[in-house]
């Protein structure tokens, strides 16, 4: 490294420093503090007087893994991710194909309209959806009654509450992935389709052999971001059901919030945060591995 390069490196660091400093202070430091907290029994007593804080090693983690409530929450979150994730990606892709279709004369209008739920406040959305889901006066059950289907207590029935939340979450979030898919679709060279048509490929074949493979990287990105986001589901059940009925919509982050801020068991809640982090990390690694295998 000569003098000029060294100077260049130094000014590079100088320009990076403000951003790095902010990340260090507002991200890495809290994460480190939370990790330390997860090895303590920080609770309301310790909040009042730090001498009442004990280091408990891995006890929070072992207690967590023995807690039936945590497994319930994990099961619910898994349900949400496994059903909601693929559904969300499929709906986004479908919407992107429709918006991007040549028959669509107003792509800008539809793109904006379908993106609207993403930028709407969740609480406002939840209020409206609660009306839609109302067992007696809701629009959804009215529609079902026209088809001769008996009314469903969407948010009150333990079996239906989670599907209802998933439906709302997918509707609220698909617009974001749709925009990414549209960008991906527009990046596919048009010559590929022209060549395929000359070879006599049908629309379905074009989709399978050109669109899907070309969208590969976009798919990976969308699937990963959706999975990471869906693992952290919190606001939807918090606003709609508070985790009920019978804990069937209690998610891991909602449980963490309750333990942390309702009961002020910060040590236990931090341990839960790191278990969730490990799970998301494992899920991400698995997806990357599968993708690499497939290639």
């Amino acid at each position: 490294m000569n003098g000029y390069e060294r100077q260049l490196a130094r000014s590079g660091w100088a320009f990076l420093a403000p951003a790095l400093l902010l990340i260090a202070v507002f991200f890495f430091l809290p994460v480190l503090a939370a990790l330390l907290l997860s090895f303590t029994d920080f609770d309301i007593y310790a909040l009042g007087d730090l001498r009442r804080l004990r280091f408990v090693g891995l006890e929070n983690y072992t207690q967590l893994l023995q807690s039936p409530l945590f497994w319930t929450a994990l099961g619910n979150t898994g349900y949400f991710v496994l059903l909601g994730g693929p559904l969300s990606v499929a709906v986004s892709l479908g919407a992107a194909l429709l918006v991007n279709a040549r028959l669509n004369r107003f792509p800008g209008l539809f793109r904006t309209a379908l993106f609207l739920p993403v930028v709407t406040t969740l609480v406002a959305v939840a209020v409206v959806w609660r009306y839609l889901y109302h067992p007696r006066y809701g629009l959804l059950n009215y529609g079902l009654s026209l088809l001769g289907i008996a009314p469903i207590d969407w948010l009150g029935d333990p079996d239906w509450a989670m599907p209802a939340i998933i439906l709302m979450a997918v509707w609220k979030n698909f617009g974001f992935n749709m925009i990414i898919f549209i960008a991906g679709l527009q990046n596919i060279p048009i010559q590929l389709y022209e060549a395929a048509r000359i070879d006599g490929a049908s629309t379905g074949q074009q989709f399978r052999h050109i669109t899907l493979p070309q969208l590969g990287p976009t798919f990976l990105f969308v699937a990963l971001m959706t999975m990471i986001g869906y693992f952290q589901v919190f606001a939807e059940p918090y606003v709609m059901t508070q985790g009920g009925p019978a804990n069937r919509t209690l998610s891991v982050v909602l449980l963490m919030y309750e333990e942390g801020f309702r009961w002020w068991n910060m040590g236990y809640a931090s341990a839960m945060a790191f278990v969730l982090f490990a799970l998301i990390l494992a899920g991400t690694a698995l997806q990357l591995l599968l993708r690499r295998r497939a290639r």
Partner: protein
Amino acid sequence: MLSRTLRLLTCYACLWLVLTLPGLSGCSPAEHPSVVTVDFWAMGQEGEQLRALLPEFERRHPGIRVRVQQVPWSAAHEKLLTAYAGGALPDLFQLGNTWIPEFVALGALAPLDERVRAWPAAALADYFPGILATNRLDGRLHALPWYVDTRLFFYRTDLLAAAGFAAPPATWAEWLRAFAALRHRDGADRYALLLPINEWQLPVILALQRGAPLLRDQDQYGDFREPRFREAFTFYLSLFEQGLAPPVGNTQMANLYQEFARGYFAVYASGPWNIGEFQRRLPADLQGHWSTAPLPGFDSGPGVSLAGGASLALNRASPRQDAAWALLEFLAEPAQQARFYQLTGDLPARQSAWNDPALLSNRQAAAFREQLRFLRATPAIPEWERIASRIAYYAEQAVRGALSVDAALTALDRDVDRILEKRRWLLARKVAAP
């Protein structure tokens, strides 16, 4: 090189200025030095209606201004704890009286013993003793009751009369006969009473009536397999097993008032806030056909109920405690308590305020006045709210038939022992190092 460093430093300085300027401009304008502003947090509708009392207070205390912040009930507990952690508690705040032990453990409340010593002796005795007791801990007064809250029966007078009871019974045995009659009215989808299965209150009230201690050894362990608690718990479950109460939770009841009007159930165990709700929401032709009754007892009525309610407390770290105390004292005056009742329907914590004509003429409040003489408090430990939520959980499991009585109570004892582990450690340490 030096000039480059200088330029960078200038850049940082500019950046710093840009980042902090909004903060500077956000500063409040200089306040008049002789006026003290008291910050007061109050919950829900109390926070809203309270404002009507303040002009009178500010007229009497020209040197004090009150800034009220309204906090929704659902987030109040979290918000107060977070405010404590962030050193942002207001000078004066409302809190549920079951939260007092938590805030005492935090050392967040300024003791009031010195201040009430200046009161006439009768003033403190004017509070309902059962309610005042929940504000005392370790022999010190940490807060003052603002309004009271307890549970009793709301019932349909017409349905009970049709079942052969001109007046509400006083014992459980008689009520059970009434329930049986109410159950066998027209149609199968009628119930005698509604007890939301996701609430802890009724199982605990029954246990307190039986004299069950709930916790044992200085509140260090759960005592739920104790015979008296078991008896009360079994009695509670039997109300569902006999089909007297429907096994539904609060959230499954689409419109409780409509169902009460329809006669889906005839008796409902609830608190004072429902007096106003029933008056507002029940159809006009039903208004003459409902009333309230003290809870029955197992031997001869009335039975005890919970000593609930909201209190007002001073922040120990506040530099404006004297001004905040002036406001607390003002709100504690019987006249203000009576006005507050007229504004909110909250029942006064001071007995003399009940002589207000508006309260005397409220037929449905009379049963509360009777019930308020028979109160029992839940254990005064910071962990109580958590324990209560576990009781609610296992009661619901047992009602749904997912757990047997033995399994539910064993699991409850196990959970509660775990919750109290820290308390045992603290007590043991206190004994070891006197």
